[in-house]
């Protein structure tokens, strides 16, 4: 990785568009390769220190300040917002769906036992629905994270590590 020798360590690193600059990206190892293959990466988010006030050789005061600064940067706020905007509704949805399923199954078994087709009844469809929704949400989350978060998070990671490098601890 060239940037380790980069003299302008404090500045923002440019990276090419397209794939993630992730050394661990391993096509063979990526699960559900077929699922993950499709889709375009999300538009990039601004960098953590868009203005890069600190020039090279002028280290920030302390690591604590750097983390606070990164936390307040628009780039980080955007990554966090994207994460929460997926995870919060998804958690509420699956948790409500699961609790409703368990409560109805235990309190209203006659409703669940209503036949639908042949021997298949509401209960069986609801149970399979739980499996299906779990698989779907897993796929949606993995896709969302890969397309909308990974790239920005990785850039923030390198930026933050560049900033904290050499700072007194």
């Amino acid at each position, binding site marked *: 990785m060239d940037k380790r020798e980069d003299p302008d360590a404090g500045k923002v690193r440019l990276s090419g568009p397209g794939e993630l600059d992730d050394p661990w990206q391993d096509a063979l190892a990526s699960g*559900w390769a077929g699922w993950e293959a499709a889709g375009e990466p999300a538009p990039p988010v601004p960098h953590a220190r868009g203005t890069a006030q600190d020039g090279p050789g002028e280290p920030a005061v302390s690591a604590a300040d750097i983390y606070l600064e990164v936390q307040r940067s628009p780039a980080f706020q955007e990554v966090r917002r994207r994460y929460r905007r997926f995870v919060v509704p998804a958690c509420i949805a699956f948790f409500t769906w699961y609790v409703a399923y368990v409560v109805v199954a235990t309190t209203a078994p006659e409703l669940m036992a209503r036949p639908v087709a042949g021997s298949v009844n509401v209960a069986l469809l609801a149970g399979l629905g739980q499996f299906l929704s779990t698989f779907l949400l897993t796929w949606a989350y993995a896709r969302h994270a890969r397309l909308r978060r990974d790239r920005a998070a990785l850039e923030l990671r390198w930026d933050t590590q560049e900033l904290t490098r050499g700072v007194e601890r």
Partner: protein
Amino acid sequence: MSEDHQTLALVLFSAFVAVTLAITTWASRKRHGTAEEFYAGGRLFTPMENGFAIAGDYMSAASFLGIAGLIALYGYDGLLYSVGFLVAWLVVLFLVAELVRNCGRFTLADVVAARMRERPVRIAAGTSSVTVSVLYLVAQMVGAGSLVALLLGGTSGAAQSWTVVGVGALMVVYVSLGGMRATTWIQIVKAVLLMGGAIALTVLVLVRFHGDFNQLLSTAAERSGHGEKFLGPGLKYGGSWTARLDFISLGLALVLGTAGLPHILSRFYTVPTARAARRSVVWSIGLIGTFYLMTVVLGFGAAAIVGSAEVRRSNPAGNTAVSLLSLDLGGGADSTGGTILFAIVAAVAFATILAVVAGITLASSASVAHDLYASLRGRGKPVASGRPVGAGRPVEPERTVESVEEPGQSVEPESVEPDQFVGPGQSVEPEQSVEPVERQVKPRSEVAVARVAAVGIGAVAIGLGLLARDLNVAFLVGLAFAVAASANLPVLLYSLFWRGFTTRGAVWSVYGGLVPALVLVGLSPVVSGSPAAIFPGVDFQVFPLRNPGLVSIPLGFLAGWIGTVTSGESADEARHAETEVRSLTGAGAV
């Protein structure tokens, strides 16, 4: 069961033991004795490998034999049970896996301690982790003993006891010699065997019914003796309102507990990045979901082919349903096919228990050595207070204990373990540019403690396994999940997501979940006041539910909140910023 069954099953099982011991030898030859290597296998597993290992860790014999048996006896209610085990993984995937991988090093306590005062938090989280592990471990050990009795017909107490001792000894060997690397490979081998066995049986069941799932269901309902009711909920968890509430409680514990199981959390540290941790979970959700779908077919298949009455006659809890099914599918009790299939099922079940037990032992030895031992040794001095916020690296005050206890140790270069891997952009910096006054515990010595801890935990598990041999310990797995959900999950979520969370809140939320969960079980019909209780003679039962989750999980969250709002100190904003930035970006992750 004839001699043939037993002989073949024992041969297969010996083969598995031989293979796993070979893996252990191989893994221990390559080890360097570092903490990274022992707890996290060098962090170099691929997502697919780790996904199989997670599935291997999670799918216990209780899942394979127990859930299929429940379905064979009670129909739909068994399926209801398995849904909770699967849905739980969404909590892990969304809220825990990546963030924990980014923030921690080896254990749950690492994540919490990163922004709190180190010692009290580590002791609390370490205690609850060990509690969860021991509960789970004893359930597995007792299960191993009764499995031998069930599958091999050895009803004598001696066979059961020797199995418990043998399983315990093997798991100690795996863990203390091979560490995480050997344990992971054992999990992978086991997961492949288990999936293979389940797929083979499922295909045979479906072939028997010419692929007609509808006919499988109607035959199962017919032969169960319950008719249509067999396909709907209520046969096991219906009845009184207490029973229904009890199941809701169990369901909550299952779905929230998985994300707090120490042996599952420690698996995320075996991969290099958070992305890899996410992909491992995606793999494991695929595997676990497929597996539980197959247990549905196997359970209904056992009811349809063997018949519920026959299953119940063989074992009232239904644990032999799959082995009876395999005998029939192979062509009957006296056929070669039946013998082979039966032996395979028995061997897979053994392999399952061994692997799960090894995984839990490793996780609890990590909690003992990395959290409890390191914190308790540092007694007398607030180890981590006043430490500046770490830069780009998880804080490691577990090494900063006083030098008095081991005068031979000094801050010498070899105590700085070089990282197994340094990511690009991650500079290789010595980890110990810290206060010169404090000396360091060598990581090597911590690993030595962990090995000894594994032996100790093995001994405890064997002892408790022998004591509890004749007790009904089926509730222990549910209890382990309930404790994990009440004591571990609240503190983990609060630390990751709540800006104002304080040390006091962290400590309170752990004990505020742990203590009620254990006390409520002590006062429940599981322990006293009912014919099936551990102490049937006495009656101090107050709490009606067998699983405490419904009450203790909210209590854990509540205690954390109360502890935080009443604590004098306010949260350290900078350390919260560090945790948040690191958890979402991976900056400074090891």
